[in-house]
């Protein structure tokens, strides 16, 4: 009974509870207005959107916790499948090699982000903003404005984005769940995760106790770029085509799902599960609004509203919690 109470306390104190409640409320509202919510097509739409932004979001969250930003994820989301598609179609490479090469490129760009930020001391916000523009230009150059398509036989494409049997769910959802689980484990249950938390601290506290902060941040930059590229490849697997405009504004949506999920913009505090929930929230919102026939422009405005509300709630909770702890000696 005591462990149950402890568990209950833990759940209620968790940062993820807020967005989870928000998700449940939103689902209830949409379902109440239009009971067609839990239908296969709706689930497909919801989970596809959630998976794309969720995978990118996990990478962004992991980096934000370590105290850095990556604004180039939207461009990476397009570049990686574009490179993969070009290698596959124009150069006739094997699809697995194309995929590996494209992912390697993503990691390399992430590494460059880290290098410029940490070696040259430029704020990651700026570095990755530059990368965003550079990679966007690369995308336009590589595609010359046309779509990159591949509809031939493939074993890789179904793995990346194919349908799961005859269910309304697609492979991207599995990937999102797996990636969430993996990174939750790394963050919360490994030494590297502890170091990631510490790297987000200011002033070199972590360094003072021997945490290899620079190395951790470098690795996290690579991870973020790789996850963004991978997410783009799952969409490539799903649609069979990719254009240079894909993933536009993804960097903003990724930050939104991270922050709504409970991750702080200032580092250290963050939750991978929260990002997962945030992604589901976004998918629910977008498809739900279409379902009830609301005007399309409402979606963007609502996202902004939800973001602000979520941040206000999180900040107040943090303050209240700390205050309450301070005020009450045992």
């Amino acid at each position, binding site marked *: 009974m005591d462990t149950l109470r402890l568990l209950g306390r833990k759940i209620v104190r968790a940062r993820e509870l807020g967005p989870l409640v928000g998700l449940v409320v939103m689902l209830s509202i949409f379902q109440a207005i239009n009971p067609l919510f839990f239908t296969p097509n709706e689930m497909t739409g919801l989970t596809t959107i959630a998976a794309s932004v969720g995978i990118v979001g996990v990478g962004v969250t992991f980096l934000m916790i370590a105290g850095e930003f990556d604004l180039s994820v939207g461009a990476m989301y397009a570049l990686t499948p574009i490179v993969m598609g070009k290698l596959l179609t124009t150069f006739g490479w094997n699809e697995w090699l194309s995929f590996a090469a494209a992912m390697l490129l993503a990691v390399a760009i992430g590494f460059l982000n880290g290098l410029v930020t940490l070696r040259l001391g430029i704020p990651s916000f700026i570095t990755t903003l530059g990368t965003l523009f550079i990679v966007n230009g690369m995308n336009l150059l590589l595609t010359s404005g046309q779509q990159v398509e591949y509809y031939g036989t493939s074993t890789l494409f179904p793995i990346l984005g194919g349908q799961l049997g005859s269910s309304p769910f697609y492979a991207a959802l599995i990937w999102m769940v797996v990636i969430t689980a993996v990174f939750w484990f790394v963050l919360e249950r490994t*030494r590297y995760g502890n170091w990631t*938390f*510490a790297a987000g601290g200011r*002033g070199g506290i972590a360094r*003072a106790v021997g945490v290899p902060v620079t190395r951790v941040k470098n690795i996290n930059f690579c991870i973020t770029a790789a996850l963004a590229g991978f997410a783009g490849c799952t969409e490539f697997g799903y649609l069979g085509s990719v254009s240079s405009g894909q993933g536009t504004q993804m960097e903003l949506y990724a930050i939104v799902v991270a922050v709504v999920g409970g991750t702080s913009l200032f580092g*250290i*505090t963050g939750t991978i599960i929260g990002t997962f929930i945030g992604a589901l929230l976004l998918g629910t919102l977008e498809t739900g609004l279409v379902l009830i026939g609301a005007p399309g422009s409402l979606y963007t405005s609502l996202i902004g509203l939800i973001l602000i509300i979520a941040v206000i709630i999180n900040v107040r909770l943090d303050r209240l*919690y700390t205050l309450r*702890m301070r005020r009450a*000696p045992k």
Partner: protein
Amino acid sequence: MSDAVTPATASSAASAVAAQAPVIELRDVCKDYGNTRVLYDVNLSIMPGEVVGLVGDNGAGKSTLLKIITGYHLPSAGAVYLAGRPVRFSSPAEARAVGIETVYQDLAIINELSLWRNFFMGKELRRNLGPLRMLDIPRMRQICNEELSKLGLTRFRSPDEPAASLSGGERQSVAITRAMYFGARLLLLDEPTAALSVRETRNVLASIDTARGQGLGIVYIDHNMAHVHPVADRVVLIEHGRVAATLKRGDVSVAELSDLVARTHPGQVQ
């Protein structure tokens, strides 16, 4: 945790101190930056269980001296001895590895993280789960619990709480306890009580006493004489790159000490 050493242990500690080598000793240490010499023939030794206050105005060479002790710089001349044996630290990591730890006033603890995460930061305990090595959280929580309970903190409830739930002084104590737990031999405390209230200060001083009782050497750096004087066994004044004075606590009052630093009243100089 007691706040006074009993007479019996005091005398045995004293004789033990007399028989032991200093925790750290600097002999004729000089430091040049390019063509400029910033430290001249510094001789300093710290015995186990001793608190040495290090004072001096900014630019006097204090920070350079500290950087040599903690392994950021190598001396340009002279030598550093650790427990009687000469050492050359090629990096701060090396100094840390042999037990030289610095506790900064505001850089010791990450407030948002839980106490156990803070306590074991950089020295996490791990166990195997099949092919994976994961954090041994139950054990870390338990040890953190034990160590912090010894401190008698009033606000401490669980090692899962964020460090922010403790007061400033308590966090300092945690940092000191952490250093001790991981085998520090020399503790450098940088203005540990600067931003603390009187009651909070007492917490920190209690931790310092515990450390002292365990035979650690302690360097206490501060501008404020009122902080240094009651704690330090000896006060070393650094001025213009030299050891200008070494005073035992009993030989000088707080006011005289302040004057000495401000150079308005020379007083007794060794």
